[in-house]
């Protein structure tokens, strides 16, 4: 039997966002789902918390894991009655990745996606800086990488291969 908590015992919205900011991205555990712009909205349906997420890529294989990780994170906060809703509109865009998350991607050796303001194809012509040595002498090796959201480059100066998070 499920016993709903009385409304008065609800955690505050700030506490919930804080708990969600502890949920790592399943494929890039150094960033969390809030700073990646994946968690979009919180709402209450009676006593039930509804968390709305927008997955990065439509075919992202991690998004079912994200849903169960979010529920587990909320449970740790004492929120048993919660559900995760998936919304595709507006579509996720890399413009939603926070400055802090961009810095973390860079530190982890993953070039952050360039800002594109809606014009994807033009921005892909710009030089990409190597996340290790900062050189802009880099070449695209493959538009597709180890996950749907990454592409592979090589740095012509430090000779290291690296991945860039795709602008979307």
């Amino acid at each position, binding site marked *: 039997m499920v016993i709903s908590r009385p409304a008065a015992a609800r955690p505050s919205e700030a506490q919930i966002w804080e708990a969600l900011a502890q949920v790592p991205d399943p494929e890039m555990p150094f960033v969390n789902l809030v700073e990646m712009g994946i968690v979009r909205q919180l709402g209450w349906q009676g006593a039930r918390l509804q968390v709305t997420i927008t997955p990065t*890529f*439509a*075919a*992202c*294989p991690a998004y079912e894991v994200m849903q169960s990780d979010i529920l587990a994170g909320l449970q740790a906060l004492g929120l048993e009655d919660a559900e995760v809703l998936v919304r*595709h*509109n*507006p*579509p*996720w865009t890399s413009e939603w990745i926070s400055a802090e998350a961009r810095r973390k991607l860079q530190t982890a050796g993953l070039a952050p996606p360039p800002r594109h303001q809606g014009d*994807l*194809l033009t921005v*892909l012509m710009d030089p990409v800086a190597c996340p290790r040595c900062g050189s802009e002498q880099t070449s695209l*090796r*493959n*538009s*597709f*990488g*180890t996950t*749907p959201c990454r592409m*592979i480059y090589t740095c012509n100066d430090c000779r290291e291969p690296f991945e860039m998070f*795709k602008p*979307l």
Partner: protein
Amino acid sequence: MNAKQKAALAEYLIALADDELILGHRNSEWTGHAPILEEDIAFANLALDEIGHARLWYELAADLLGADRTRFPDQQVFFRPAADFRSLQLVELPKGDWAFSMLRQYLFDAFEQHRLVGLSESSHMPLAEIAVRVRNEELYHLRHTRAWVTRLGLGTEESQARMQAALDALWPYARGLGAALPGEADLPLGIVPASAALYPAWAAEVGAFLAEAGLRLPSETAAVQADRAVRSEYMQALVTEMQEVARLDPEAEW
């Protein structure tokens, strides 16, 4: 939309999804077999994207039919007889050599961009929303396949010959992209773009692009393969393989 129109749109979406699914399945056959590691990764990604997009269309069809959207995609993919699929023969053809798979992907993706632009203006909002999101992802496919078509078409004598052979074989099937999808004729204006209206822009675009890549469009005397009610001779084997594990234990939890 009334019930009849909803059913027609579901039929249309299932055909779209079938194309993506079967093309994705064919792409997955390159995993572990592509000529270079980067392309192995690329084709695995293309497969994942297409199958992911198929799932979105199947889910949307489930909503229109009042079916369970969490179960409907699996039912369609794993428990439907081959004869009931509505894919275009273009995507059913075996993967061929790498030139063939690359060119098929290009021809398909180039048409899909035109269709997605039309679908993103659909008056059926859930459809327009999905189209907008799929469209941006597909830009990466088109960019990749365009680069390779040019590279192979203008490459060595062998790569040029293989691309030309692929184009000669694919063209009658690719022209089927311009035929109306199931359900299309029963939909009111503004829900989906008319496939025939998308065809001229696609044909002009790919014609010019292929010419720049040193390839000749075949004459258009060969019969267009556009009948989605008829499966190619290759489809039964594909479906049998795709469904083999699921049918062994339909109640299995993964």
